[in-house]
């Protein structure tokens, strides 16, 4: 098992390498550069040229790439052109925000999806099932931002139940309980929005898993032994059906990371997704590349995590 994990990590290296080359080259192909935004009648074009040269942006891309990857290996992801800060610091700050948001989203997501999936599967083709299936289709079809905006205006502004932007109110002292509660309070609505929209996959999966399980021999055996259906569900079917869901955890998290772009933008939440969109417009190469690499790495990590959980919960699968 450890050997496999180490090997999976080794396989990541070429993947990340290819990704780094692709994103680096693409980023360079984007029209404009971080200094295009600095022009004004007062700026001296010579100064811009000097800055561009100093930043090494005039070198051929492979030279720039080698320099970048070399530094990256030493843990130096460069300086954000926009924020004039160390990229690692900048992302670190945002990553934590995105992390909490994703974590709460996953939690709420499971909280909603699992009961619904189980009910739909158990009472297959009932009115309840049909309603749940309809719900899952509808949430799948609604664009994230439409629901996000509606929630924001309804719960945030009209009802004033939730804060409407940011990650924490400035009036609370960092470190106090009130402060953490406020942070939690800020991510509640975005997480909920996100969770509501992300349930489709899990509901559908659980539903068909349970429908399948009903026809399985072990369930029939249990039934024929006279065990009440309720017990069969709680003792056999749910457990077997839920395990794969647990195993999807890794994938779910990485999926949520991708969607964070929308949620963070709508709710003005300073996370990585929002940082990415703004970096695109400001041509902040170092941030763009670092973020794509980070997301790529997290996705790989997520799939590894899923595989590991899967092999733990399901003895039939051994990652060897």
């Amino acid at each position, binding site marked *: 098992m450890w050997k496999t994990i180490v090997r999976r990590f080794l396989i990541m290296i070429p*993947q990340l390498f*290819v*990704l780094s080359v*692709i*994103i680096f080259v*693409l*980023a360079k*192909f*984007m*029209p404009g550069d971080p200094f295009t935004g600095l022009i004004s009648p007062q700026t001296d074009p010579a100064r811009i040229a000097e800055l561009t040269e100093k930043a090494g942006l005039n070198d051929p891309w492979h030279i720039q790439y080698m320099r970048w990857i070399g530094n990256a290996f030493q843990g130096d992801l460069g300086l954000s052109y926009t924020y004039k800060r160390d990229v690692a610091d900048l992302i670190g700050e945002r990553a934590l925000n995105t992390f909490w948001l994703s974590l709460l989203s996953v939690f709420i997501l499971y909280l909603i999806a699992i009961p619904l999936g189980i009910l739909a599967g158990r009472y297959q*083709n009932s009115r309840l099932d049909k309603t749940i*299936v*309809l719900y899952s*289709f*509808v949430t*799948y*079809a*609604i*664009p*994230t*931002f*439409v629901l996000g*905006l*509606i929630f924001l*205006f309804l719960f945030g*502004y009209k009802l004033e139940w939730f804060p409407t932007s940011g990650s924490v109110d400035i009036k609370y002292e960092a470190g106090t309980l009130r402060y953490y509660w406020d942070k939690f309070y800020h991510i509640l609505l975005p997480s909920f929005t996100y969770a509501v929209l992300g349930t489709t996959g899990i509901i559908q999966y659980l539903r*068909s898993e349970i*429908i*399948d399980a009903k*026809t399985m021999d072990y369930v029939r055996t249990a039934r024929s032994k006279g065990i009440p259906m309720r017990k069969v569900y709680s003792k056999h079917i749910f457990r077997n059906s839920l395990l794969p869901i647990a195993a999807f955890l890794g994938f779910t998290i990485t999926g949520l*990371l*991708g*969607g964070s*772009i*929308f949620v963070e*933008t709508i709710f003005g939440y300073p996370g990585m997704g929002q940082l*990415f*969109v703004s970096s*695109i417009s400001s041509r902040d190469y170092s941030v*763009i590349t670092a*973020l*794509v690499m980070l*997301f*790529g790495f997290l*996705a*790989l990590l997520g*799939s590894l995590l899923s595989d590991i959980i899967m092999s733990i919960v399901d003895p039939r699968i051994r990652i060897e």
Partner: protein
Amino acid sequence: MAKKNKKTGNNNYVNSPPTGLQVIFREFMKDKLAMFSLILLVVVILGIFVWAWLGIDQQQLLRVSLRDKFAEPGEKFLLGADQGGKDIVGQIIVGARNSMLIAIAITLITGVFGVAVGLICGYFGGWIDNLFMRIIDFFITIPQLMLIIVFITVVPKYTVGAFILIMSLFLWTGTARLVRSKALSESRRDYVQASKTLGTNDFVIITREILPNLSSIIIVEMTLNFAGNVGIETGLSYLGFGLPQSTPSLGTLVASANNPLVLQQYWWSWLPAALFILLMMLGINYVGQALRRAADSRQRLG
């Protein structure tokens, strides 16, 4: 799964392959909702194409009329006008046509490519399979939305074609993966072995022997992909990476709901398009569900 189909195949229907049209037909007959969805889809899609083709002068439609900015639904504009004073109904029709074409194009491109790659990998195995599986693994792990956005900023001329290609670049892997696993198990079956010993060449084996046996799975997969692709440009439009104004699309219409005023007061500029997307996706999904049941005997109703 496929095996089961064959076993439970409709023995009463002489002269038909076991997972043939009858099964699908019977499935639809059993599921009124799916039947209704199917009919609705066909009518709507045909209607849109015909209407957009015959009834709408696109130049006229796209003509900005400032005085009609956000005109309310009424006599002049059945569903009101958008912020450029352009008729919403016309835009929905043309936008739906464009979005459908985009969805169809992406579904077909990714479908054809994914199926081809999946078949080749599943059938031949070996290094070619390894190579493509590595590539697919790679595509699955990269942050797709991010790269799509980067691509969109990079393309010199952002047109419908460019959009379709960029999306297709990222969306073929799911199909390829699915088809590969099915093709792999199919290739191990004796009839494929038999064909090899009977002198049939690989290309014919893949296309004539294996492909027909995967057809039901592929149809289901493509249907669901199609549903996913209908609203594909909505999110990007919202993020500011949507199609240019000269190409009305459902996504652009829905994305106009990005401020409270439009969202609440000028609901007619985005809500119909959003509902249209919703209904299309629901319809396609219900059809897809029925198809899926037809392909999977365990869930079959009829």
